[in-house]
């Protein structure tokens, strides 16, 4: 097991006098001192705008920013750093593709396939595109909480322009197989978008291997600063796409009569970017790579197995997600029978245990599961088995309080 808690200053906090047990990393991760210091160091020594300035400070800031882009490209094995666009969050990455690729072609029809296990961020942008003329259909899930890929074969049609799927579910923990999905979609002439917000932070993701055309993820969920998100897209798509936001830095030449746009990736980055955010993200990637994403994946699998074990021993807890720790991430959604998830979360909070409760930004999935809400505990490289033990102890208390 990894032992990294010491690198995360926030995890030393007390909540209501108890040691904090942070089990909400699927929402956002904590940051190691290496990331916090990198941001600070940037502001103290290298802060300047990146718009191709002639002065030394500006050159250093530009270099820091572009090096972060290279680090992201390397992490996911993109063909070139030109394929990496810095945005605010995974949501913006998906919207960028919706606006720049699909909005212009939406009026001429076609179909987009999403799934019922998506985060709202991979549903609502496509409803917007749907309102401009493209059809939208949702792939279901099976009894074992995995994607109904058999049905994908049936609903793919010559009309299908895009299949957009989460790599790992932020509710079920289910890890989908992008290779299988890309294979089917590409055979059908459809593009593939991967929502990798819950996978890139937790496992080695290789865009060549996944075969996706577009991939969105969040820096803030992978130890990086808030305000960082990434769109990966194949160079050919970025070249052909319309710009998204318009303004400084994304142009080549502006006149009152018209404008020519900058090359990729800058064509998609209008205005001053979150430079310190990129620098912090770079430090986060360095940190993750130093430990090794394989090791992180194994650490989390052990945590998951331990947690599922303890839960089953506890009894009276329903879990929504695959049973096999190898096939899922360390995101465990559950309900304590007879107790509302908000009450579960509030009572756990008094024990210092922070989990999420609610619809987890996946209302269609809630409906499919037949629940109003869930409690969700999610682990990361800084969590240990003891954190899940504290969770289970807390749940025992919940059950006592509610007499269930």
């Amino acid at each position, binding site marked *: 097991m990894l032992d990294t808690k010491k690198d995360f200053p926030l995890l030393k906090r007390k909540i209501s006098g108890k040691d904090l047990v942070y089990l909400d990393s699927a929402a956002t991760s904590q940051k190691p001192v290496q990331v916090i210091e990198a941001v600070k160091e940037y502001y103290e020594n290298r802060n300047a705008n990146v718009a191709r300035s002639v002065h030394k400070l500006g050159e250093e800031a530009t270099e820091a920013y572009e090096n972060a882009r290279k680090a992201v490209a390397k992490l996911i094995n993109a063909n070139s750093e030109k394929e990496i666009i810095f945005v605010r969050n995974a949501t913006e990455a998906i919207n960028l593709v919706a606006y720049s690729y699909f909005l212009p072609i939406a009026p001429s029809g076609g179909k987009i396939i999403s799934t019922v296990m998506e985060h709202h961020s991979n549903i609502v942008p496509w409803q917007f595109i749907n309102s401009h003329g493209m059809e939208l259909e949702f792939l279901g899930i099976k009894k074992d909480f995995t994607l109904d890929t058999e049905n994908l074969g049936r609903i793919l049609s010559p009309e299908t322009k895009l299949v957009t799927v989460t790599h790992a579910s932020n509710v079920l923990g289910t890890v989908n197989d992008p290779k299988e999905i890309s294979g089917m979609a590409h055979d059908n002439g459809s593009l593939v978008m991967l929502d990798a917000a819950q996978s890139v932070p937790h496992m080695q993701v290789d865009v060549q291997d996944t075969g996706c055309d577009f991939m969105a993820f969040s820096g803030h969920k992978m130890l990086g600063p808030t305000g960082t998100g990434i769109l990966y897209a194949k160079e050919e798509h970025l070249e052909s796409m319309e710009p998204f936001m318009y303004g400084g830095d994304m142009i080549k030449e502006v006149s009152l009569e018209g404008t020519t746009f900058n090359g990729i990736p800058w064509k998609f980055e209008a205005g001053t970017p979150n430079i310190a955010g990129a620098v912090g993200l770079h430090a986060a990637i360095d940190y993750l790579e130093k430990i090794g994403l394989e090791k992180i994946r194994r650490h989390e699998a052990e945590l998951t197995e331990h947690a599922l074990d303890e839960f089953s021993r506890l009894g009276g807890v329903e879990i929504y997600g695959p049973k096999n720790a190898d096939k899922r991430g360390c995101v465990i959604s559950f309900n304590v029978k007879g107790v*509302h*998830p*908000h*009450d579960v979360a*509030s*009572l756990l909070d008094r024990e210092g245990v922070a989990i999420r*409760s*609610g*619809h987890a930004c996946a*209302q269609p999935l*809630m409906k499919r599961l037949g*629940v*109003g*809400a869930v409690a969700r505990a999610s682990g990361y490289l800084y969590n240990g088995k003891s954190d899940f033990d504290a969770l289970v102890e807390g749940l025992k208390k919940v059950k006592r*309080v*509610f*007499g269930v």
Partner: protein
Amino acid sequence: MLDMYAEEILERYKDPVNKGSIKNTAAEAHETNPLCGDSLDIYLKIEGGKISGAKFNGFGCAISQAAADILLDTVKGKNVKDVKMLSKGSFLSALGVSLSPARLKCALLSWHALMMALERAG
């Protein structure tokens, strides 16, 4: 201030006195809190400008259920006019439970439903 999970609240949650429904009501309203999947129905019987009967039905957390039960206790027998004046703030202080901002919404679900029902009653 009461603790959120004080005996009284838990009792109300497990054994609400005003849970149920009323047929042919003067006013009904349905409220949901999409965040937590809670939903609540309020049924009112009104006679001579007074709330002569009140029930709620639905599903939610301890706070939302207990608050609904307590709210209906306090409004029963009261003039509709007076109940319409019941502000969020005074309901919450009457409730007397210490709540975090995120849980305020839960406590107010029934208040919103009640106000909507009264509006509909005219």
